[in-house]
């Protein structure tokens, strides 16, 4: 992705909290259904997989089709056990993998 994804995590997190993580990636999410001016099919180019892990353990994932809107937005929850690293991964049809590691500060 040319632009880094935006990630929002609440502040003042305590152990045991269930917090919402908001993510917004920048991607065309080309459906593969459209044709260009010459009538040729525009090939599909979407983010097909999004995963979120915390300290290496899976928290949430999404297997995505062309029915998710451009600039895919996903908000999901994490039950906080303690401090650690949240790792978010987006993979698109061209094989481009974008990884963001976010430290979670726990009070």
């Amino acid at each position: 992705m040319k632009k880094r994804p935006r990630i929002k995590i609440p502040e003042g997190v305590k152990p045991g909290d269930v917090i919402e993580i908001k993510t917004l990636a920048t991607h065309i999410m080309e459906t593969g259904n459209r044709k260009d001016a010459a009538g040729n099919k525009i090939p599909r180019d979407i983010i097909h997989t999004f995963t979120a892990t915390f300290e290496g353990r899976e928290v949430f994932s999404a297997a995505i089709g062309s029915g998710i809107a451009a600039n895919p937005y996903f908000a999901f929850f994490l039950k906080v056990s303690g401090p650690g690293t949240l790792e978010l991964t987006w993979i698109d049809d061209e094989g481009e993998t974008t990884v963001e590691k976010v430290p979670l500060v726990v009070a």
Partner: protein
Amino acid sequence: MDDDFGIKVIQRRDFVLGAGAAAMLAALLGEARALARSAEFEAALAELLKGATPRTGGIDMDLPASIDNGDYVPVALGVDSPMTGEDYVKAIHLLSPANPRARVATFRFTPLSGKARVTSVMRLAKTQEVVAVAELSDGTLLMGTHSVDVKVGGCGT
């Protein structure tokens, strides 16, 4: 014509007419259903249910009842669950019966999620009844539907 017991006996001619009308109605309904639900959708749903009958309801589907731009339809899906190792929601599948592709997304959760809820933004090609199927850790399937009236369709169609 009434018989001795006061029960109305349906005459053969009435029955034939009635049966004909019922068959026509069924054909019309079948056609409307076929228009509203793609073959790909029916196959995707059958694949998810694997012959089981899902429980209706239990999925909170937060979508607008009506939207101007089908390219950008906010959607939130949630299931009330303790989200423990013994009792949690494994997945919520989002399906579209009238988009070019029926499988919109499969969202997977774990007990680490703490809450089985996801918010995203989807595309809708036209007015339709969006379907969600949730898979619980004990194998229970839940199904919910939500109609969205789409003014201008998305999906690049």
